[in-house]
């Protein structure tokens, strides 16, 4: 632990010469982490709660501002004034906004997300059924991004300004500019209709066949991952090249290391720091990306539920899904912070 800590810290390799100072630093590093942990967690939890509170209230507010009414939405053209008012009463829509919000909040804290207006089922069970779909899609895209972009970035940095690098660089620029939903359409057309690798719209539920489910998700995952992949690769390449210019690299070379040795043992770890930040942001973004790409590939996940619930004015569902997404983004931010500290203890809390 301590060994790595200091090595990464300054990127210097002369362990033997600085034993004393290294131990000293390691101590600071150790105690600092422990004492700060509690504070850090408490602070994060408070901000999380506050953010969720604000987000959920904004959703409530937004629904009271936009036109449309869930009772009318359910009754449609059959609505009569009597039926409408009775249904509004049943749904509890006649009470003031702040009372409705308070009620929702209290039940939410108790773990009850209410019942969907459209589906008459508990929001929890609805969301629990859909989370695996969207989460698998997001995680799959993330893995693809990480597995493709890191080797690609390293390759480009190593072969800087050669043909392959130039080519990938140009391709990256193009891919970066393509939004996920359009990428989704392209992939559907290319792999679905031309190569017939999958059936467009032929989503298979995970309850029916896990392998079929995962296979179908590969294509939307590519659509989400590709643009992010291009960005990450480019970022890593730049970051690696910047690092390579630093003094410790010269020292490393002078100690007889080969390019690969310098790159993988010393430079890469330092160069990854900005990339980790970006990947963290990308993971949050990917959830949003999956919501859109779900529409293109007709995957009945959280995104589909969210969009239809918005147009049906199904508040309980919209509320729960948005809070969930907010929590997801916040959780990822926390995770990124923690990873920072592991990778680079110099980073202040």
């Amino acid at each position, binding site marked *: *632990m301590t060994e*790595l800590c200091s090595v990464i810290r300054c990127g210097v390799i002369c362990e033997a010469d600085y034993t004393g100072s290294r131990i000293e630093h390691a101590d600071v590093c150790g105690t600092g982490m422990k004492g700060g942990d509690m504070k850090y967690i408490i602070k994060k939890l408070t901000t999380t709660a506050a953010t969720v509170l604000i987000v959920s209230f904004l959703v409530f507010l937004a629904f009271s501002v936009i036109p*449309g*009414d869930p009772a*009318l*939405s*359910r*009754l*449609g*053209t*059959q*609505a*009569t*004034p*009597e*039926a*409408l008012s*009775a*249904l509004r*009463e*049943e749904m509890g829509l006649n009470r003031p906004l702040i009372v409705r919000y308070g009620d929702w909040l209290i039940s939410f804290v108790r773990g009850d997300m209410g019942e969907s207006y*459209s*589906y*008459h*089922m508990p929001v929890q069970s*609805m969301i629990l*059924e*859909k989370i695996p779909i969207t989460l698998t899609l997001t995680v799959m895209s993330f*893995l693809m991004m*990480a*597995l493709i972009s890191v080797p690609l970035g390293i390759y480009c940095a190593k072969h800087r300004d050669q043909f392959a690098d130039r080519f990938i660089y140009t391709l990256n620029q193009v891919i970066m500019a393509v939004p996920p939903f359009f990428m989704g359409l392209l992939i*559907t057309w290319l792999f*679905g*209709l031309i190569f017939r*690798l*999958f*059936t*467009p*719209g*032929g*989503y*298979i*539920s995970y309850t029916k066949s*896990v*392998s*079929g*489910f*995962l*296979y*179908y998700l*590969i294509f939307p995952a590519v659509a989400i991952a590709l643009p992010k992949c291009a960005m990450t690769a480019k970022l890593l390449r730049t970051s690696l090249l910047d690092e390579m210019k630093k003094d410790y690299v010269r020292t490393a070379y002078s100690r007889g290391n080969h390019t690969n040795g310098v790159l993988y043992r010393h430079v890469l770890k330092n160069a990854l720091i900005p990339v980790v930040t970006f990947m963290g942001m990308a993971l949050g973004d990917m959830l949003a990306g999956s919501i859109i790409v779900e529409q293109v590939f*007709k995957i*009945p996940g959280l995104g*589909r*539920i969210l969009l*239809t619930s918005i*147009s*049906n*004015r199904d508040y309980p569902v919209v509320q729960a899904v948005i809070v969930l997404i907010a929590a997801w983004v916040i959780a990822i931010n926390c995770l990124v912070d923690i990873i920072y500290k*592991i990778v680079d203890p110099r980073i202040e809390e």
Partner: protein
Amino acid sequence: MKQKMLKNILSVVVLAALTIALGGCAGGKAGDGSSLDSGIVIGIPQDIEDSLDPHEAVAAGTKEVLFNMYEGLLKPDSEGNLNPALAGEYSISEDGKTYTFKLREGVLFHDGTAVTAGDVKYSIEKCADAGNGDALNLAAAFSNIKELNTPDDKTVEIVLKEKDTDFLSYMTVAVIPEANKEPRTDPIGTGPYKFVSRSPQESIVMEKFEQYWGEPAHIQNVTFKISPVDTAVMDLEGGSIDMYARISSAQAAQLGDNFNIEEGTMNLVQAMYLNHDCEYFRDKRVRQALCYGIDEQGILDLTSEGKGTVIGSSMFPAFGKYYMDELKDTYPRDVERAKELLAEAGYPDGFSFTVKVPSNYQPHIDTAQVLAEQLKEIGVTADIELIEWDSWLSDVYTDRNYEATVVGVDAASLTARALLERFDSEAGNNFINYKNAEYDAAFESAVNTTDDGEQTKFYKECEKILAEDAANVYIQDMASFVALNKRYAGYEFYPLYVQDVAKLYILE
């Protein structure tokens, strides 16, 4: 230590990637042609978002699915007749006020219990109670019921306050078991198919009900898959769905040899509905000018390759008895006459107004666009404003805050009344604010008469008044195209908004 951890993480990642890749290979096989063994997959444009409880179902898209699970004492057929269903026989008293239904022997609910007179009573009373919030407009019709008796377990006797010639058509209302406390999530009916499961925004699954009293269904499993209409062609060609109703003529043309295209009518009145409280449309001459200004066949030619039926009033051909074909010629296209009428009305240079069109339904948008172009020729500018369906319901339909709108209006039941009722000055759903004493009188006579011939005459008079008064700019009953994979056959069009899956069968 950390390097070890990194290695662990890396191996997990690689493992996961491998699982995905291997899963992919297996999935490729599983994904192909699986629709045959799992039964027919029918694409529907939207999920059931009102309720699985038939008495709360209001959306046409919901009713067409639930038709397969629920039945009433009587059941409509594809010809528009009402046939005995749960009631094996029925009789109507001389004065037309007492209806006696004898329940068919051996009819079972999907949970295996027998249908009793008590269940019928429960179902009718549930709909009659407007106060339970979600009841349909049936509440109004059932307010005419004086008493509902069940002399024995198999007999239902209904006594009306006033004679109502349309009453039998309301007896198609679904009968559900009184014992079921959760009809919204655990639907139980008597239909040829029973509910298996649903997954929001994904699918609704049904299977053949083996103990069905009538002619059994042919296909074992049915999945209604939620699949937007704009990608229907891709889904049909790709094989993820076998049938899709109400696709456009352009989509029908794109489909390859694997599909049969059935052509029928939508059974709705597509028109540019005018708000009679708007200052322009209060004037009959302006409304007439608009009617003279448009060329219905031209709209059909441009939007659906000429398919569809031009109509001239609030009635469509499926109602053979009431439909008057000649009304479509009330206002043939006549640009000069239209301009004259506008000048007389005080708009020699025309005027401009806004047409609100629901954005979720392309055929109405297409119609509005052609219509707007045609109206330019008479100097009238129609600005199209696309609005979300929910906003349409609240702004246009409920608050009547609009100038004109292009939509299709369908019939909730097999009665002329269902289409004409809303134009009565006092009707709660008179969203065009139509007020015409002559019309009110004709409609009232139609409702109150006890003679079927007389009633038809009065309803026809209503239609005629709507046409001549240019109440709305009537356009068409749209053509409906159903794509059905050639493995299946037996599709039947109904004068109602239903998909009768029990009639479909697999070709060997």
